[in-house]
């Protein structure tokens, strides 16, 4: 019984950590900018392939490859702001949310196909991974799962400190809560938007490495985590960061339990059922408030 519970717990926590990572980037951007970044999946894939390129093609150490993925993700986020979002914000603000969604769908498709043309469609092995397990009596804890949970915990702590304790984090939260008031306090909201997309891109980079280390690198790598991230965001309430993390871990553990009890094929349908139930019961999400259009 203990080994079954442990297996569910390990699977749930690892998947939950990956979901949380994917969700945080998405939720951060929505919460502070009212922007649904449909290119997030492709940015995540880009992170995974960047680490692969740095580690395999350039022969750099795994740690450098990991940092490289973060930097490439951050640059992608920055470029997304400079080339697309900034220009859309200059236009009619009332249509920004729909325009940016359509624009990022296009960017996501273009990025994914660029990766396909560059690396081919064959799955590749992510070199940044840990092999072996820590055996504690009857328990066997894979190092890879432990690494993912550790990285995610560290990253969440860094994000929490950044948002809660720094001047930049306060500006991001202020902009998310009341954009006009933040401007009156002297916050340059365009700079905040740039910072948020850079941060979100960096998180996507980490997430891409972590997800591909559990599976394999392939051009549509980011699609499944992003779909799950949307589910977590909807369940938690769009833009609610702590709620999204709680939903990610809670639903991942629930999914792992369902997969064990009813079979792997029931995991995803059950998650969708939960989303529908939450949307009926609490349309703004478990931790969300009714959204007020700011633009």
């Amino acid at each position, binding site marked *: 019984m203990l080994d079954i519970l442990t297996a569910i717990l390990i699977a749930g926590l690892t998947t939950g950590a990956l979901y949380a990572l994917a969700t945080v980037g998405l939720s951060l951007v929505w919460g502070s900018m009212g922007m649904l970044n449909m290119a997030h999946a492709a940015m995540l894939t880009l992170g995974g392939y960047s680490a692969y390129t740095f580690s395999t093609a350039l022969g750099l150490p795994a740690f450098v490859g990991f940092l490289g993925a973060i930097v490439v993700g951050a640059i992608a986020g920055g470029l997304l702001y400079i080339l697309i979002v900034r220009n859309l914000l200059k236009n009619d603000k009332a249509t920004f949310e729909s325009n940016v969604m359509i624009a990022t769908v296009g960017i996501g498709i273009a990025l994914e196909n660029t990766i396909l043309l560059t690396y081919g469609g064959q799955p590749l092995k992510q070199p940044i991974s840990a092999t072996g397990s820590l055996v504690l009596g009857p328990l066997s804890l894979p190092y890879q799962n432990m690494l993912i949970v550790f990285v995610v915990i560290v990253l969440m702590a860094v994000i929490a400190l950044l948002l809660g304790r720094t*001047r930049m984090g*306060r*500006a991001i*939260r*202020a902009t998310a*809560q*009341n954009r*006009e*008031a*933040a*401007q*009156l*306090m*002297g*916050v*340059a*909201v365009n700079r905040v938007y740039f910072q948020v997309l850079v941060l979100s891109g960096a998180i996507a980079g980490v997430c891409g490495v972590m997800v591909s280390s559990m599976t394999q690198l392939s051009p549509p790598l980011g699609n499944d985590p992003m779909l799950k991230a949307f589910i977590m965001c909807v369940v938690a309430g769009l833009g609610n960061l702590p709620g999204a993390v709680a939903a990610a871990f809670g639903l991942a553990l629930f999914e792992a339990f369902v997969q064990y009890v009813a079979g792997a094929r029931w995991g995803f349908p059950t998650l969708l059922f939960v989303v529908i139930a939450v949307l009926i019961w609490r349309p703004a999400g478990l931790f969300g408030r009714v959204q007020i259009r700011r633009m």
Partner: protein
Amino acid sequence: MNNAAKPPLLRLANVVSGYSELKVLKGISFDIEAGDFITVVGPNGHGKSTLLKTISGLVPLTSGTISINGGPTLAKPHAIAALGIAHVPQGDMLFPEMSVLENLLMGAYLAPSKAEIDRRLDEVFTLLPKLSDRRNQVASSLSGGERRMVGIGRGLMMGGQILLIDEPSLGLAPLIIEQIYGVIAELSRSGRTILLVEENPARVADLANHLHLLDDGVIVWSGPPAELLARDELLATYLGG
């Protein structure tokens, strides 16, 4: 130094602004000097809040100029805030999920140093001691009067040259209004430059040194508060008696 040549702290010249095609302000001009307490009175929906929002950059200028210390007209609200315009907007516009302290610290976002932030915080807590008691309380859980106090405190934390206050009495009980105006009177006595908009001129009769009566986006009368209060025909025509 020749004082006559010195530009006013704030100068509005033929200011026209509004929302998309709707022109709300139709040519506003006046000056504010350091230490002034200027009040703009007028009926609801005639441009009082738009005036403050135009000065702070939230509503873009259609034409005209707004000059701070003789400088050029700026468009971005954050740049205007950096020049010392502290806007306490209508409805408070607090950051609802932040604590009182965090809201106040956001006011000092552009402060040059930690020591300066601490100095301003001490000043605010001395003037508004209740905020010190409530410092860790989330802003959304405050009462209307407390929220207004945080709004004013946050404006003070900006350390600006001019405090723009938008209808501080709106939606509050008479006792709370009295407290709020007590604080504003204290600020005025300490030499702060204040531009306040208010619907009821009687509330600022003892505070303001000059009134502008705004009607349909234009200033229709200017003068000392006592004079307006003595003009029954003006009160009846523009402020409903």
